[in-house]
């Protein structure tokens, strides 16, 4: 009680210190300037001379062979099973060696563009997590739905994309939304998406629905709302659409994949050992199969005609 005079004196000092503190705080701001942009290295390496990319000159794990890794089990629509299962096959569910499925077919097309025959391709099961870790690899190239990210590209080489992860609409077979063939036609339906996703942004900016979209914490909650008949469809990326419509929805269906609309679209990349001498050649091979329409026909055979029509 008696020290009151003294504590009154202390106040201005503390206030002055607080003000000085504010000044110091503000001057710290520039130190968190964006450095992210600089670290997103372009995936293209300097274009190699044609000779370096000839099959005979490629420094593969086993000379004259191209070892391709894939996750096991491998799933449709990326890999399909061989029926009956070949004796001694290590592959569960999907069998990459038959060349069926988006990634199996893409892998063989890339191998062909590099100059390998189908007989020179060796498949190896490699768990997804170990494939994208830094360190020596047991494969030359690896395909298993690796979406490109700048962080991953620091651990392994990631090629240009071979498949764009477009958005898609999923619903129940009985819902009238399944009759829609255009993006404009979706506007009349009640749509939903998980919060903070590209999918939600796509609904708002591109579909512009007449009913406010419902927003959920997780995709599972959005799926539950479709099953409960509260919304007509959920927008998700295409690979998720395949899984969710077949596994999570009762009598689910992909209404269609949505056209790319500005901004950066995520894509699947082929992974290689960090700084692999093959990366530039694989990029050239991807460019080649894009250029001659091979990739487009693979996508149309294994995605578009496998229950994911394109909405115009």
């Amino acid at each position, binding site marked *: 009680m008696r020290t009151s005079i003294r504590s009154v004196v202390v106040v201005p000092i503390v206030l002055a210190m607080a003000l000085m503190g504010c000044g110091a705080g*503000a001057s710290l701001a520039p130190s968190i300037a964006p450095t992210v942009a600089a670290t997103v290295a372009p995936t293209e390496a300097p274009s190699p001379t044609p000779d370096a990319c000839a099959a005979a000159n490629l420094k593969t794990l086993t000379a004259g062979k191209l070892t391709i890794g894939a996750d096991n089990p491998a799933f449709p629509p990326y890999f399909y099973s061989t029926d009956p299962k070949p004796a001694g096959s290590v592959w569960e569910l999907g069998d990459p060696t038959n060349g069926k499925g988006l990634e199996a077919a893409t892998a063989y097309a890339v191998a062909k563009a590099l100059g390998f025959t189908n007989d020179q391709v060796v498949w190896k099961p490699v768990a997804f997590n170990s494939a994208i870790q830094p360190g020596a690899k047991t494969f030359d190239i690896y395909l298993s739905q690796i979406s490109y990210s700048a962080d991953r590209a620091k651990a392994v080489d990631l090629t240009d994309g071979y498949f764009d992860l477009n958005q898609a609409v999923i619903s129940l077979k009985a819902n009238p939304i399944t009759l829609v063939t255009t993006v404009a036609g979706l506007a009349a339906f009640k749509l939903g998406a998980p919060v903070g996703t590209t999918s939600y942004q796509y609904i708002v900016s591109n579909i512009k629905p007449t009913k406010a979209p*419902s927003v959920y914490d997780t995709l599972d909650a959005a799926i539950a709302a479709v099953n409960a008949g509260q919304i007509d469809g959920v927008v998700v990326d295409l690979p998720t659409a395949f899984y969710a419509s077949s596994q999570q929805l009762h009598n689910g269906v992909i209404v269609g994949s949505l056209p790319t609309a500005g901004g950066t679209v995520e894509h699947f990349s082929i992974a290689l050992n960090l700084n692999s001498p093959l990366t530039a050649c694989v990029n050239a091979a991807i460019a080649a199969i894009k250029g001659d329409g091979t990739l487009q026909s693979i996508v149309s055979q294994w995605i578009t005609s496998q229950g994911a029509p394109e909405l115009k």
Partner: protein
Amino acid sequence: MAGPRPPGRTREGRQKPILIALASTIVFFGALGWVVVNAPGWAAVQTSFFDAEVFRASLPGMVAAFGTNVQLFLIAESLILVVGLLIAVLRSLPGPVFFPVRVLAIVYTDLFRALPGVLIIFILGFGVPGLQIPGVPNDPFFWAVVALTLLYSAYVSEVYRAGIESIHPSQAAAARSLGLSQLQALRFVILPQAVRRVIPPLLNDFIGLQKDTVLVSFVGVVEIFRTAQIKQSALFNFTPYLGAALVFLVLTIPLARLTDWLVARDRSRGARSNA
């Protein structure tokens, strides 16, 4: 708390405690502010939580979305006050005949006070519409109101019951001796006194309900918290949450003050009547 004032204080003597309180408040918050703004991460926190530009841009949308929360808690609160009272009365019914009713009321209050609100909202919001029973609504807003009503009626019925039990048994006995029936005694003697006594705790539960309306965002209702979340993820900035918090503060702080004032008034009245 409000003891007799020590006699013989001069004007100067009375001002001294006020000055001390003022000084200690400023020192305390000044020191706290100093620690915060000098923290190594303050610059980053300042831009991601206190961005004035983002705040201005996101506030109108959130105030609009708050309308959904207001609708929710107004509808739910009117139902809760009725359902809660009904359950409290059922639980207070005397005599062996009403034993099963009392057991049901006890099971209900135990169950719904034990279950997490989110779980009730999920089960009713997705589960019941998922049954696809014809004629049963599947609107998540409808089921959100039902879930909040079930949840809060359990708490509120206990508040009412405490009020009913706080009325001395002699009151009921006196009412019965005047020729009132059991129900009349409850209606005209017990409940009016009991309800007046529990208004502050009822207001507390009402404030709780207001805040729990954000839970219905789990079943797809886009209300203020979800709107803030959408803006946060679009702008990579947490400031919209601050806006949502402010909207709640503007509503709940006056209510909390009112509750405290009612408690204080009640207490002083009690002191006077006891004297």
